[in-house]
């Protein structure tokens, strides 16, 4: 455990309805990484070793240790009793003494900015991306956006286009991560609500193939990164 709150590399970021979002600072820091390593179990240590790049190792260790520390605090359990299972598509969930823990979470890491969302109920997804201008935006837009999204992106210019692309992409990925199925179904097959495409920060969404389930969407981006959360609304919430 870091010696004091000041040594922590994570901090509260935003409350979104009943979900809490924590920011994880993943900038290179050997001392933090050394502390983080002491939190990982054997399996996580081996997984970390399998990453081929220092950056990927660092991101995994700092995020996973922050996740462990926060979950232990919230669940009141020692780190040794906490483990993680994963769904068929790899979405992790927490186990305490082998039993599913009464809290859900989702993790996302960009290159130096990480976010972890927590909620007691409802499926959750979070995504963070640094807005790299180096990527082939035209190719990406053609692959992942629906027709109306493509039309809007076609009329946006320069920096606004870059921001709009990452805004839409992080909302889509947060939704897919909330579903937990990896990046299927095809993300170009659904579109982000119009008001959010036009700049509104929040919205409610239904997948065309599961119209009975509603998702709360919120833009978590700032000047450093694009980010979004998707949280399943309970059927009785308004």
């Amino acid at each position: 455990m870091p010696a004091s709150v000041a040594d922590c590399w994570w901090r509260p970021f935003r409350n979104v309805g009943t979900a809490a979002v924590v920011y994880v600072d993943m900038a290179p820091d050997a001392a933090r990484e050394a502390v983080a390593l002491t939190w990982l179990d054997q399996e996580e240590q081996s997984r970390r070793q399998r990453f081929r790049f220092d950056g990927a190792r660092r991101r995994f260790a700092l995020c996973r240790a922050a996740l462990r520390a926060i979950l232990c605090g919230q669940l009141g359990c020692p780190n040794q009793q906490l483990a993680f299972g994963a769904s068929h598509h790899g979405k992790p969930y927490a186990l305490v003494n082998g039993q599913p823990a009464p809290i859900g979470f989702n993790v996302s890491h960009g290159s130096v900015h990480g976010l972890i969302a927590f909620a007691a109920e409802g499926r959750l997804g979070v995504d963070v991306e640094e807005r790299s201008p180096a990527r082939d935006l035209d190719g990406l837009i053609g692959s992942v956006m629906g027709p109306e999204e493509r039309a809007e992106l076609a009329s946006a210019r320069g920096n606004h286009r870059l921001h709009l692309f990452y805004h839409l992409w992080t909302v889509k990925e947060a939704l897919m991560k909330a579903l937990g199925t990896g990046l299927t179904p095809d993300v170009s097959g659904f579109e982000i609500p119009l008001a959010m495409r036009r700049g509104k920060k929040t919205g409610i969404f239904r997948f065309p193939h599961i119209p009975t389930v509603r998702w709360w969407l919120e833009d978590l981006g700032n000047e450093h990164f694009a980010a979004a959360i998707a949280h399943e609304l309970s059927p009785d919430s308004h």
Partner: protein
Amino acid sequence: MASTGDRLKTLIADNLEVDGQAIAVPENLDISLLEAGVSSVDLVAFAKLVARDFNVKFTLEHCTTLNSVKEVADFIDSQPG
């Protein structure tokens, strides 16, 4: 004609990197791009390149469910074409 594996290696070397570093694909192609730290947005772009260069239907779904570059090569070779 270069093998599918060699063409994939070139495609990866020319188009993908993690934190500015090139991805060294081993001779046996036993490497997972997700595990190497390639982000999902870069995988989308890569899937598009694979589809175009090999003239096969290859989506992001293939990219995340095929666990290694070797599996991607085998998948491409199994497609009629």
